[in-house]
């Protein structure tokens, strides 16, 4: 019996070999290189050796479904079939030593299984058995460690105590693992959310990350529409997904409305018993809810919405699966990151709007001036017409005046068209778009056949799609083509290329490069401002419209060429993140 715990039985005090086993097990638990699964596997083997059992397993509670599943096994005779069978039987009957331990939260030991009231036979050779619960910090059973022997009376009280100590260590490791997962999820949220450009992507990412760190049946995000004082469902993983943009709560209505009104979280295991509960829009049948957390999504100066997580009630009394304070703290932290991201979206929108407003001021002064000039010219033609009408005059005399009038009116219309484009530049109607296809299309339409300028295309294959307004982007590309052609009247080269702007392919770079005169350093900052033009056509809004469109796509545009070498416009647009099939071009 040397090397086993049994030595301690006679010796009294702390068994030396037992201490060695503990050292081994605690080292395993501390190991950072190994996954939780590896560690539990190894611990089970060590513990089985220490108590001289012939067979062992660890079953863990699945809080999502309210089940107890055999996850790790050691010893002879295990196969997929009996692992699954054991689970089913113990669930169905409510009998079985494992279920009994899980239900009571107390260890159980039998020296003779043939007379035991709880024992269910799976291995013919088993004579004795001991099982201990893995109980977490909230007093909940996380799982059961089970040891079996072919000898009768194989397990002593000391064996049981040893296994209880191992179970407590396992509970600690599970807790540490869970905390680690949550921490990783929060870090990843903070780091990754900034690169998203659409709130729908953000919601999906948040729900994915939360799902990776906490088990739940369903979760939903409601956003507040302050002008109507209602919460509207923006995203949901489960059956509420069909009611996105439709499911609503007035602020103050139901638990969700209460959270928005008071800016405080609610955690309950039975929403129906809560006086605030209305049961308007539910992810689960009300009687199936085993836990609910609803927390406010708080922005800079107000509540932006409510984040709600639900867990299904366990069918088994011995698996209490409502949410804990830890769960709530995690959801609160997630919601506050979400709040910060939504705030930043709002800020970007406001910055773009402020820039446009500033442009508008200059725009109205400038356009009044330009329209005034055109009208003045038209009035001159009218004056001439009146003069001619007072005398006998020939058609030849009238013709140039009428022609001039037409030209004047046409130029007025030209200004109006540009004006309109400037106004609508930031109003987008988006869908997933393949930039490569769009570029090819735009170039086919706008690149003149006989310009003397050679077109070089270098499109990177397999780019992820972008969420874009195709017609607006086409307009941008055409403007850049037109610009380049205009500045290379004597012929030249226009090179258009695409590539991922980052290794993660979350941004795409498009470059328009030519061999024209380029942009003088002092003009680089001015070219995107309205009315800056070295050409006479229109109002000089071309590049400011391009910038407006790119800004509205949450992209950037810069001119990075060198004067004398040619112009080089670099556009960067955010790609659609994590879209299934994002590796391929969008169709």
């Amino acid at each position, binding site marked *: 019996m040397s090397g086993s715990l049994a030595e301690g039985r006679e010796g009294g005090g702390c068994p030396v070999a037992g201490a060695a086993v503990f050292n081994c097990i605690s080292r395993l638990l501390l190991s950072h290189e190994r996954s939780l699964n590896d560690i539990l596997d190894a611990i089970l083997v060590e513990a089985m050796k220490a108590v001289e059992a012939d067979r062992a397993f660890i079953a863990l509670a699945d809080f999502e479904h309210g089940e107890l599943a055999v996850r790790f096994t050691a010893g002879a005779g295990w196969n997929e079939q009996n692992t699954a069978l054991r689970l089913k039987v113990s669930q169905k009957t409510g009998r079985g030593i494992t279920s009994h331990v899980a239900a009571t939260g107390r260890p159980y030991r039998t020296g003779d299984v043939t007379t035991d009231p709880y024992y269910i036979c799976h291995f013919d050779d088993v004579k004795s058995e001991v099982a201990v619960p893995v109980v977490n910090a909230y007093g909940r059973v996380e799982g059961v460690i089970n040891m079996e022997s072919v000898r009768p009376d194989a397990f002593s009280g000391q064996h049981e105590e040893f296994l209880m100590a191992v179970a407590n260590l396992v509970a600690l490791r599970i807790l540490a693992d869970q905390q680690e997962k949550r921490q990783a999820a929060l870090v990843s949220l903070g780091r990754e959310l900034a690169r998203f450009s659409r709130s729908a992507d953000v919601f999906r990412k948040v729900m994915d990350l939360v799902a990776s760190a906490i088990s739940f049946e369903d979760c939903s995000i409601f956003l507040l529409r302050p002008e109507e004082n209602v919460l509207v469902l923006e995203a949901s993983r489960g059956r509420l997904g069909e009611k996105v943009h439709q499911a609503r709560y007035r602020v103050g209505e139901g638990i969700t409305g209460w959270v928005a009104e008071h800016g405080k979280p609610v955690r309950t295991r039975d929403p129906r018993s809560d006086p605030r509960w209305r049961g308007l829009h539910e992810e689960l049948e009300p009687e199936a809810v085993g836990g609910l957390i609803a927390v406010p999504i708080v922005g800079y100066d107000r509540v932006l919405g409510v984040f709600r997580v639900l867990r299904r009630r366990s069918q088994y009394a011995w698996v209490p699966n409502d949410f804990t304070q830890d769960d709530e703290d995690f959801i609160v932290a997630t919601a506050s990151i979400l709040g910060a991201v939504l705030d930043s979206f709002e800020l970007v929108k406001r910055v773009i709007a402020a820039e446009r407003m500033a442009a508008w001021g200059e725009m109205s002064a400038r356009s*009044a*001036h330009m329209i005034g*000039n*055109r009208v003045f010219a038209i009035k*001159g033609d009218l*004056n001439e017409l009146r*003069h001619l009408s007072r005398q006998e005059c020939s058609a030849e005399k009238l013709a140039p005046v009428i022609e001039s009038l037409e030209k004047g009116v046409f*130029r007025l219309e030209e200004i109006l068209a540009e004006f309109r484009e400037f106004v609508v530049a930031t109003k987008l109607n988006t869908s997933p778009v393949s930039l490569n296809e769009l570029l090819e299309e735009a170039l086919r339409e706008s690149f003149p056949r006989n310009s003397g300028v050679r077109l070089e295309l270098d499109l990177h294959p397999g780019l992820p799609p972008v969420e874009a307004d195709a017609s607006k982007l086409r307009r941008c590309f055409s403007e850049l083509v037109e610009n380049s052609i205009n500045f290379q009247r004597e012929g030249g080269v226009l090179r258009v290329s695409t590539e991922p702007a980052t290794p993660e392919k979350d941004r795409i770079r498009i470059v328009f490069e030519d061999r024209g005169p380029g942009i003088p350093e002092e003009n680089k900052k001015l070219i995107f401002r309205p009315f800056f033009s070295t050409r006479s056509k229109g109002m000089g809004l071309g590049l400011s419209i391009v910038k407006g469109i790119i800004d509205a796509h949450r992209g950037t545009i810069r001119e990075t060429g060198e004067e004398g070498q040619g112009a080089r416009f670099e556009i960067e647009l955010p790609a659609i993140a994590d879209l299934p099939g994002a590796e391929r071009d969008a169709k």
Partner: protein
Amino acid sequence: MRILVVDDEETVRSAVRRRLERDGHTVDEAESEADAAEKIQASDPSYDVVVTDMVMNSEQGGVEVLKSAVGRDIFTEVIVLTAYGNVANAVECMKLGAFDYVEKNIPGVDVYDLLAMKVAQALERRRTALATLRRADQIMKVTARAEQ
């Protein structure tokens, strides 16, 4: 009479020219401040009246043309055309000695006839000024002879 019309828009220049030619004037055109300066410098005799836009390449284009014109002939009259929002600049020109300014867009007013009238008035002032100058010259000559 010789008139120079300065504006960066071809349609505006030709409309103004046409109207002033109708009154029997000889009209030249310039498309920028620099072009105007060149033509004014080369003119002989000098222009009687210069009609200039206020804002061209520079916000102060009209002032530059005014300076060129009076630099060549102190009695050349300058009329400034202003679009929306340039009245302050035009008043500045008046202080520097411009004859008058005309707003391009006055609702319901035929600004071309108004401009033609201003040109007539400017020519009248130039004639009066030149006549006064000639009289003063004569008086000085007579006085000088009497003193001999």
